[in-house]
């Protein structure tokens, strides 16, 4: 009797859920369908979905044929392994929005389409590239091995680009106005060079209030603003194309020593990079870190505090930053790669990007749209990022970048900061490891 009840209950549940489930749409009605996986937040998703509908309408009006764009939100976390499983089982989407650091992995794994080989690409890599913000476009161009030689192809279209800049808490600057003035520093603006930065940070570090001048993350990507402003880079390329690790070059070591001194000698950095510590964003939000480096995605989150945004302080090589953001790629399993590209081309075009930027306050990836927004946003916080992007340089991607970061570079950065070895020694070892274990994968090919 009781068994019967349990079984009936289970059957009823299964039936109920099956009934409210929707069948996966197929193309049995002959309409070409493009499935898009994206990782936008709720607000971005809404606008993106609306724009997809617009594209459907425009396409219908222009060609008389109906297309369908299925926009599906997927969690950002675990997306890359998920894409791999999807590829294995042939359930990959036509288009997926991916972090710009993943494009190389996808390209090497022959997972995504070389967009420049599509019939409707419309020009050379350079010609098409001239319509995009260079830093954003560059993250999509990958050199891949084909029949014993290396060829350059375009594997994605940028959909979002950003970089970090210096956020400074005006309230904390104001509270220390007298002390700053005493040091000959202007409390109403942010530091413009690293030297000035240290002087500001010293005044703004007040141990008894647990207030620090600066808080930072300590991974390779977050070190890029330092490396770039010191004129260093992650990899050096010899004339014959051989890549070597650049982190043990004098310029890179100068940058690393500077970072270490912020934490160890000047004691102006909060140790925000440590596991379990209050991270820079949280510390900035709580008014404990007077300055941090972060990106435009935090502009809204910080709206509760009085802050300003300034260019990354200049080093020997001037101001510069890293490049973040995401790209849209087309999977090789797509039945309609040309249609998928057409949509991406439309979405990254001038009109769509102006709208995207206007509705969400984000940086356009289209060059013309970028210049327009740069003019109208001049003087605003967003404008600073547009300005910063002109000098930003992306981190050169190499295979197994995640392992290089997790297992080699990030531990070396952490140990230098903790004083368990000098940057010279630690990055010397790290570079040897990177050259032998990782860069050899492409150098030997």
């Amino acid at each position: 009797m009781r068994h019967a009840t349990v079984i009936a209950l289970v059957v009823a549940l299964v039936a109920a859920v099956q009934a409210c489930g929707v069948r996966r749409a197929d193309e049995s009605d002959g309409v070409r369908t493009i499935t898009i996986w994206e990782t936008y937040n709720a607000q971005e998703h809404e606008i993106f979905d609306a724009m997809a509908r617009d594209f459907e309408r425009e396409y219908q009006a222009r060609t008389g044929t109906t297309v369908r764009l299925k926009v599906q939100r997927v969690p950002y976390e675990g997306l890359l392994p998920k894409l791999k499983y999807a590829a294995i089982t042939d359930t990959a989407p036509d288009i997926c929005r991916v972090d710009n650091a993943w494009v190389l992995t996808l390209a090497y794994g022959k997972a995504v389409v070389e967009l420049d080989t599509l019939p409707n690409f419309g020009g050379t890599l350079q010609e098409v590239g001239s319509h995009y913000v260079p830093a954003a476009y560059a993250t999509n161009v990958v050199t891949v091995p084909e029949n014993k030689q290396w060829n350059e192809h375009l594997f994605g279209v940028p959909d979002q680009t950003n970089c970090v800049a210096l956020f400074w808490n005006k309230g904390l600057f104001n509270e220390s106005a007298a002390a700053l003035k005493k040091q000959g520093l202007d409390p109403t603006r942010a530091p413009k060079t690293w030297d000035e930065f240290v002087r500001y940070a010293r005044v703004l570090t007040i141990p008894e209030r647990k207030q620090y001048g600066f808080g930072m993350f300590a991974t390779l990507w977050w070190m890029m603003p330092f490396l770039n402003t010191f004129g260093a880079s992650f990899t050096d390329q010899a004339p014959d194309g051989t890549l070597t690790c650049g982190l043990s070059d004098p310029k890179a070591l100068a940058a690393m020593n500077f970072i270490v001194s912020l934490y160890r000698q000047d004691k102006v950095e909060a140790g925000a990079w440590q596991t379990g510590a209050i991270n820079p964003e949280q510390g900035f939000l709580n008014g404990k870190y007077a300055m941090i480096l972060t990106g435009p995605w935090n502009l809204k989150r910080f709206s509760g505090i009085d802050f300003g945004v300034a260019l990354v302080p200049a080093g020997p090589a001037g101001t510069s930053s890293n490049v973040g953001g995401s790209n849209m790629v087309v999977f090789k399993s797509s039945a309609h790669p040309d249609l998928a590209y057409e949509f991406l081309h439309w979405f990254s075009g001038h009109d769509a990007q102006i709208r995207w930027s206007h509705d969400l306050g984000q940086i356009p990836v289209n060059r013309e749209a970028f210049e327009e927004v740069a003019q109208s946003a001049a003087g605003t916080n967003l404008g600073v990022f547009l300005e910063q992007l002109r000098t930003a340089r992306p981190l050169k991607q190499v295979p197994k970048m995640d392992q290089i970061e997790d297992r080699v570079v990030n531990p070396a950065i952490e140990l230098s900061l903790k004083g368990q070895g000098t940057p010279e020694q630690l990055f010397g070892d790290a570079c040897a490891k990177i050259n032998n274990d990782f860069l050899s994968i492409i150098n030997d090919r």
Partner: protein
Amino acid sequence: MATVRNKRETLIAYAYLAPFLLAFVVFLGYPILYSLYLSFHTITVFTSWFDIFGDMEWAGLSNYTSLLFNDYEFWYSLYRTFVYGLLMIPTQIVLGFLLAVLMREKLPWRGFFRGALFLPHILDVFVVGTIWVLIYSPNYGLLDVALNRMGITYFSGTGVLGNPWTALPAIAFALVLKSAGFGMILFLAAMNNIPESVYEAADIDGCSFWQKQWHVTVPLVKPIVLFLIITGLMGALNAFTEIYAMTATKYSQGGPFIESGGHSVGVTKVSGFYLYKTFEQGDYGRAAAMSFLLLIVALVVSVVNARALRPKDV
């Protein structure tokens, strides 16, 4: 006659076993064998995603040899797993036992306590880990606020999770609190089986409260202890969710890092987490090889354990 009956017995027994064995062979047995096959292959960065298993390269024993002879991190992760198990398993058993002893006392609200102590066991490890990260966080976390009140500011710089000495114990502590209730229920169940007369006899012999527990209760709950050790061991070897939740941010995987033997190693990068990272990075061949090495370790430790704790008269 006897053989006929035996044959029938055997048939019946296998009939009862069949559904389980079928599911086991398909979903566990075959994957194990397939992983063994994978462990002799390697997936390179150029392996096509759409044909990963067809496009793998034969690697021979290189996955195994590189782990055993050329990977300091692997050995270090085993050592950290050992430390983690040592921190977690005894504490969990002792705490579970003590709670069970407390629950045996006729205290007011006993039912509430029993339920409340067990409740965290059903929570998601990831959620619990995340919450503890906040409790442990320096300067603003509950723990550091409390320590500061007592005048201890040693952890304010890094937080307990950022300190190489305290990171792993802190994780173990969080997990012990979560799972102590489970041990408590098991002990409670075993203790309820002990006849009251045994305790009364001990009382007559003039045993104190703790003497009674030690001489009467402990020997009788030995199977539970063995059981908890084995499950704890599996927990330690498979531990990755708690590490993932507590010391693996986007910015640091398994830190804090220390310098050991000329290598930088993460003190919370236990072997389960190392395996998870290898697996996540799509290095399935290497991950499979690592799993089999871990299996050997687990087998050895369990056999040693079972031998050590087996009652002498068997």
